[in-house]
């Protein structure tokens, strides 16, 4: 015996092109919707991971330092602003501070990099306090420096790859022509640390002929009031405080504009898909009026006809939804790359994270929207008067 599901399938296959185009519409809107949901979840997760990987929640810098990166690029480090190292002890006295580490960023001009020279950046860190900030660091080979004034470097994985260095090899600081021995190479972290060259703080201060620092990284005690500490730090002279929770909020605000735009596009896409479903099913109902009339004369109740037409809608939305989710999963990497190109800041790791729960949620939303669209055609089919429809055909 033929089931209502089989009847619905056969009805949809009568007009293959129309059914296919409707399916494509549903599939595209599902694709956009699930990718957007995946981006919502993935971006925040990746951003949190990046911030956690920084190892510290607060950074204290000399005023003007947010422009440091640009300064380093443009002026080869000559425009850097510095702080007294004694400030580390002052900040350490604050009750909220758990750990603290001084950092010196330096850039040297390398005339033999690229066509017209380039910048080689170094990160001077204290071997006693910095490793505790980055407990997730794993060494591919070697380890940290022997002491704070050793002529040694630790390289991030990509920095070592670019410089073709192994533990035991030598490196040369351009401009200063100081030789340093590679004592450690880190595993990949997927963060900016991969491209960093770490030098003991005192060694870098000696090379750069400076006894100051550029940055202080602060890890706050668990349950401590970060805002209170920030306010205290703002009282220090000529410094500014960068809180990663603020950075996160700012980035999320920037991204929210893009999210609203994409969500609007997704809503429009869903509305278009819903209109497509209404059109397809309604056309199908109007074309089959005499058949529906005959079904009714044979004893079919309005509810039976309603369910039959609604089943068609369910099939359309189910197949379109599953296909859309499949495409979203298949092209998640491509979507990720596209999003990275568009966004002003993209954290490392996957930006579009689609899991089973999200896929089911999207499928549920699409099917629900589809069934809503199928209400009118199904209702109209259920109300067909048998004799009238058969007579109309004749």
């Amino acid at each position, binding site marked *: 015996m033929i089931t209502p599901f089989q009847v619905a399938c056969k009805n949809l*296959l009568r007009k*293959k092109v129309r059914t*296919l185009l409707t399916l494509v519409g549903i599939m595209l809107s599902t694709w956009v919707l699930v990718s957007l949901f995946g981006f919502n979840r993935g971006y925040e997760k990746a951003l949190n991971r990046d911030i956690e990987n920084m190892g510290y929640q607060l950074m204290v810098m000399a005023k003007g330092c947010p422009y440091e990166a640009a300064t380093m690029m443009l002026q080869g480090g000559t425009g850097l602003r510095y702080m007294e190292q004694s400030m580390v002890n002052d900040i350490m006295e604050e009750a909220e501070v758990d750990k603290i580490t001084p950092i010196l960023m330096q850039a040297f001009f*390398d*005339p*033999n*990099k*690229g*066509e017209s020279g*380039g910048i080689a950046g170094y990160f001077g860190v204290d071997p006693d306090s910095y490793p505790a900030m980055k407990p997730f660091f794993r060494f591919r080979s070697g380890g940290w420096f022997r002491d704070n004034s050793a002529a040694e470097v630790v390289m991030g994985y*990509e920095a*070592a*790859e*670019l*410089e*073709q*260095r*192994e533990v035991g090899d*030598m*490196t*040369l600081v*351009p401009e200063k*022509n100081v*030789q340093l021995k590679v004592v450690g190479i880190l595993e*990949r972290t*997927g963060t900016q640390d991969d491209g960093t060259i770490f030098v003991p703080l005192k060694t870098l201060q000696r090379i750069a002929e400076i006894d100051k620092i550029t940055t202080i990284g602060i890890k706050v005690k668990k349950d401590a009031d970060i805002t209170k500490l920030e306010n205290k730090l703002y009282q220090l002279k000529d410094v500014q405080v960068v809180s990663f929770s603020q950075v996160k909020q700012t980035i999320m605000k920037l991204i929210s504009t893009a999210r609203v735009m994409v969500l609007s596009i997704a809503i429009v896409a869903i509305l278009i898909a819903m209109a497509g479903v209404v059109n397809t099913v309604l056309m199908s109902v109007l074309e089959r009026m005499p058949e529906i009339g005959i079904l009714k004369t044979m004893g079919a109740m309005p509810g039976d006809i309603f369910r039959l037409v609604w089943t068609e809608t369910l099939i359309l939305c189910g197949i379109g939804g599953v296909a859309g989710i499949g*495409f979203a999963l*298949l*092209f998640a*990497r*491509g979507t990720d*790359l596209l999003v990275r190109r568009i966004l002003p800041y993209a954290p*490392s790791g996957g930006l579009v994270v689609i899991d089973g729960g999200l896929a089911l949620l999207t499928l549920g939303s699409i099917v629900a929207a589809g069934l809503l669209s199928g209400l009118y055609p199904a209702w109209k089919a259920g109300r067909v008067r048998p004799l009238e429809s058969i007579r109309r055909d004749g």
Partner: protein
Amino acid sequence: MRSVMMKIACLALLLACTSPLPALAAVGCDLNDPARDVPRLFPESTSYKTVYFSIAQRGGAPFQRKIENRLGNAYIALYAPIDVPYTLYEIYRDKKKVGYIHGVNQKGQFGGIQVFVAQDLTGRIKTFYIQKITGKSAGRFRDAAFARKFVGLSIRDFDSYDPVSGKGTGRIAEIANPAPDMVTDYYGVLRGLKKNLVLMDEFVFSMERGKP
């Protein structure tokens, strides 16, 4: 209906396979600024196309052994796994292909050396360029006079010269080290050049020779 769905599935798979490599792939050797560097290295060019290839794609472990045998070294380079993406710039004058630019990484005494060559369609070197090298006298290797010594060379010029031991005869052996305090880098440059030419011969010219 079935054939349409099959076509869609095939297209989807093709796009998935050809989409760019993940962010954690090994570092290849690219020109820092191709839009500026390509016209400088290949003055008659009007456009270029970037192509990526890897040993894994073209034959895997047996192919890697073949290349290593030609290089006379068990290791092609540090940090060069079988899936490292090599970047090839195909150079065009209007719509006609006129040559290639390709670079490789090589280990130097104080840092990586990036050796690029621009070749015509027969494999002869038109321009030789060291994009990156580290050392007190590194500038001498980037000097135009040193680069000119490599113009016109091809893979055949390495037949009688072993850049691993630095011994042999021929045009390569006649090229003097411009920076005597950087001997390691001098041999590194020559090793990088041979690696570059061997890779180009295996990946590009041998395939073109095989075409009917």
